[in-house]
């Protein structure tokens, strides 16, 4: 949830960054090690508009997404020559999720369709390496 920076807890902030950025590093390191051996693979990250713009009362989210974008860009340039493809998706809005009240469909087309995004993810995974 958006929170003024002065209210952020040091430990919860560290925990969040550990999960988003350090966790992404750990997972991609294990995945890429195996994909190199296999000769191909795709690694996809879910990003947001906060990956390019730090919004007010959104310090932690901005750090998370900027960090993830940096990792994705560096990995893409390192691993593409080895036929491992990195995708970082800018999801510009809230994805519909029935289990979260604030993310339920309100009938005004204000939430993004998770099925449509899933289709997009799979399509990118299956793209020819030249495309």
């Amino acid at each position, binding site marked *: 949830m958006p929170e003024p920076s002065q209210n952020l807890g040091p430990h919860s902030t560290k*925990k969040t960054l*550990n*999960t*988003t950025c*350090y*966790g*992404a590093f*750990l*997972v*991609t390191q*294990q*995945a890429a090690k*195996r*994909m190199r*051996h*296999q000769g*191909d*693979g*795709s*690694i*996809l*990250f*879910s990003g947001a508009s906060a990956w390019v713009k730090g919004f007010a009362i959104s310090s932690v989210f901005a750090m998370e997404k900027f960090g993830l974008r940096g990792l994705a860009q560096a990995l893409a340039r390192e691993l593409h020559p080895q036929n491992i493809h990195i995708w970082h998706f800018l999801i510009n809005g809230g*994805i*519909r*999720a*029935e*289990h*979260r009240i604030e*993310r339920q469909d309100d009938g005004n087309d204000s939430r993004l369709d*998770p*099925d449509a*995004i*899933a*289709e997009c*993810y*799979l399509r990118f*995974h*299956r793209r020819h390496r030249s495309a």
Partner: protein
Amino acid sequence: MANSVLIVGAAPGLSAALACLCTRNGMAVALAARNIKKLKAIFAETDASQHLCNASDADQVASLFAELDHTIGTPDMVVYTP
């Protein structure tokens, strides 16, 4: 083209949609999360394997992939969506 996908940080919403889509496409699906209780609905709709994993713990992540080595092998697609 059947292959496999690992979704880390899985939760209802996008992960559920992706798990269902990949299952319909004949892919082996593995879901990893710190709290796998919230994934019950996904497991009911797919035959995805479930893996308890804190992605910020190096040992747990290494164990997750070692486990997959013995089941679905190297995932062709890894989705990190914390």
